[in-house]
């Protein structure tokens, strides 16, 4: 019987934190990939939380990412596009000004990650906070590259100022469809 949702790799952040998480040598035998992320930023103090980026196959220099967002802040809504980025947003996550012990929840779904088209994906994410301010967000992302995905990097988009807090957890899954 085919495995529908196969756990591939998991990273749980230890004491001291990290400023990136990399999943490399991703198996090429699935049809889709899923990232489930329970994250908190342990360093910054911006009122919106911290934005963590996603890069693919170590592509950080070609401005080949773009995205469209729909978001709510707890009091307002908005939507926007951004082109020619050096990474995609994965979401905002709670940081040091958010309620203690509170972690954001985010899922990234990447279909057809070994296909020969550009790679489209969808992100749904929430931050949470015992306050009116918390981000609820959906992102449609695009990596303009036809290569199969073999590496995903959850990337410190704050130029070294972000640190994933202890107990943050990222799980990578492979998804199979019927007929595989």
């Amino acid at each position, binding site marked *: 019987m085919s*495995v*529908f*949702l*196969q*756990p*591939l*790799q*998991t990273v749980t952040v230890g004491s001291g934190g990290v400023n990136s998480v990399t999943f490399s040598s991703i198996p090429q035998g699935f049809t889709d990939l899923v990232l*489930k*992320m*329970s994250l908190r930023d342990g360093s910054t103090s911006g009122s919106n939380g911290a934005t963590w980026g996603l890069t693919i196959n170590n592509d950080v220099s070609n401005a080949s990412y773009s995205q469209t967002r*729909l*978001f*709510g*802040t*707890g*009091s*307002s*809504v908005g939507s926007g596009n951004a082109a020619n980025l050096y990474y995609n947003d994965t979401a905002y996550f709670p940081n040091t000004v958010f*309620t*203690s*012990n*509170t*972690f*954001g*929840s*985010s*899922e990234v779904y990447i279909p057809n990650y070994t296909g020969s088209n550009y790679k489209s994906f969808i992100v*749904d*994410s*929430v*931050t*949470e*906070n*015992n*306050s*009116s301010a*918390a981000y*609820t*967000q*959906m992102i449609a992302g695009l990596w303009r590259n036809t290569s199969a995905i073999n590496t995903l990097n959850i990337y410190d988009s704050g130029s070294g100022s972000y640190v994933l807090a*202890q*107990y943050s*957890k990222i*799980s*990578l*899954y492979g998804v199979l469809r019927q007929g595989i």
Partner: protein
Amino acid sequence: MSMYPIASALATGSNDLAFTNIPQNFTHLQIRVFLRSTNSGAQDFNYVRINSDFGSNYVSHGIYGNGSGAVSDYYNARSYNWLTDIPGSSAAANIYGVAIIDILDYTNTNKYKTIKSIGGYDANGSGTVQLASGLWMSTAAITSITCSSGNNVAAAGSTAQLYGITTA
């Protein structure tokens, strides 16, 4: 395989939907909800309460669209997480709301528990769709979940399915 069915809850029209004695050997939980309320009015809501905690320990945020506009709001100091709007008893017959609810790292005693819900319903000319979040301000591992309509009486035919997800 990493996603396992744990339990199913079925409404008869006189009960809520609840899961108890949740196994502690998974990493994440997912609940798939098909829900209508017996409450009067055209619309009610889907809530989640954890470990039978009736204290004011819940906060909710969300973004909602109803076909004519979108808003974002929040609720704090509640005794439950308010997640997705669902049809009430005066909504057109046979219409139920749906939601997929994720609770990551549900046994981690160093974290408050964050809930993410994508849901909504359509009623042929009206409806709502939502991405909502809930915070339960407790570090306790989750052992039970009530997932039902605002008046605690889900309409007959409502269901909730609980799944456990493992990690590598």
